[in-house]
C-alpha cells in the first residue's frame, strides 16, 4: 500500500508534508518498538516504524535501517529540529493520537505485515 494512502486511512498528521514521495512509496511491512537498538537490528527495510520514542536518534536509526516512515503514537510529536533532520534524510514522519496497539492493528488490517511475514 502507498504511504500516502496509509496516512489517509489512519488519519495521520503529516509532520513532513513538503517531502515528496509519499504518493509513490510502497509500504508492505512495519515494526513497532521503542527500543532503538532493537529497531536497528530488526526493522524491515522500506518499512514503517510505529513508536512513541521521540528522541532525535529515531531519525538516525530509521535512516540507517532504511525505513520509509515513522508514525509517532499517543499524541507524542518530535520537536522541529528532529523534523528538519528527517526532511534532510528523506524520512516521512507522521503523528497520531492513537496508541501503538491501535495503530499497529489498523496497519495490519490494511495489509501491512510484520517484517518476517511481509
Amino acid at each position, binding site marked *: 500500500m502507498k504511504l500516502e494512502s496509509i496516512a489517509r486511512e489512519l488519519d495521520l498528521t503529516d509532520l513532513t508534508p513538503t517531502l515528496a514521495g509519499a504518493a509513490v512509496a510502497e509500504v508492505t511491512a512495519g515494526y513497532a518498538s521503542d*527500543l*532503538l*537498538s532493537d529497531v536497528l537490528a530488526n526493522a524491515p527495510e522500506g518499512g514503517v516504524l510505529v513508536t512513541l*520514542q*521521540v528522541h*532525535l*536518534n529515531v531519525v538516525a536509526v530509521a535512516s540507517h535501517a532504511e525505513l520509509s516512515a515513522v508514525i509517532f503514537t499517543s499524541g507524542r510529536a518530535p520537536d522541529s529540529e528532529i523534523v528538519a533532520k528527517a526532511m534532510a534524510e528523506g524520512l516521512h514522519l507522521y503523528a497520531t493520537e492513537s496508541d501503538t496497539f491501535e495503530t499497529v492493528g489498523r496497519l495490519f488490517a490494511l495489509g501491512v505485515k510484520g517484517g518476517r511475514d511481509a
Partner: protein
Amino acid sequence: MTPDPLMTVRADLHVHTALSPCGDDEMSPPAIVDAALAAGLDVIAVCDHNAAGNTGAVGEAAGSRLTVISGIEITTSEEVHIVGLFPTVMAAANAADEVRETLPVADDDYTRFFGEQYLMSADGTIYGREPRALALATSLGLDEAVELIRRYGGLVIAAHIDRPTFGVIAQLGFFPYEAGFDAVELSRHVPAGSATTDGYAAYGLPVVHSSDSHYLEDVGCVATEFGLAAPTFRELVLAVKHREGRVLADA
C-alpha cells in the same frame, strides 16, 4: 610552578541507598560507609533513582573517613539512565527537587511492587519515606536532564552504557554524541582493561567503572582509579576533563 603531587584515589561513582525502591533495605548510610571502606574505596557517589534525599546522611556517616559525592540517577523520558554528580549536597537536593516533581505520587500498589523508599539519618534511622514514585521515568527528555544537571554545576555520566536495559545505546540505538555527556559508565559486567572497554572508550569520553550497587556486598566490586591531588569533587572534575594533570586510569 611545581605540579601538585597526585595520590591514587579509588572511586565507585554509582551506589544506591535504601531510598531507591530497588535498593536493599540494608543500604543504610553507616552500612554503605563500612562497605565502601572495607572495599578499599576513597570516594563513593550516592546516586539514587530520581532522588538525592540520603546523600547528606551518607556523607555525615562517613565523616572524614571517605569522600561522599552527592549524585542522582535520572530516568529520562526515553527511559535512559543518566548519572549526575554534584559539587554539594544542596546542589544535588535542589536538582533532585526538580526531577522528583515530574513524578507521580507513589501509592500502596506501587510500594508493594517496587519496594520502600526510606529516608535515613546518618545513624541509619528511618525518619521518613519518599512520597514520589522514583522507579518511574521522569518527564525530562535526555537533553533536558543533561541541562538540569549542568545548571547545578554537575558532571553528567551516561549510566551503564553496556547494559540491555536503560543504557543509552540500548534505548537510543546509537551513542548520542550531541547529548553532552562528560563520561560514560560501564557496569561490573565489563572487565576494566578489556577489549570491550576499549570499544566503549572509542566514543572519545572518559570511561568510569561503577558498581551500581543495590546491595552492600556489591559496593566497590568495581571502581575507577584516579590520580588526584585530593579526593574531592573538584579534583574529580579536573580528572574527567583532563585538566591540570589529573588523570583517570582503568582500575
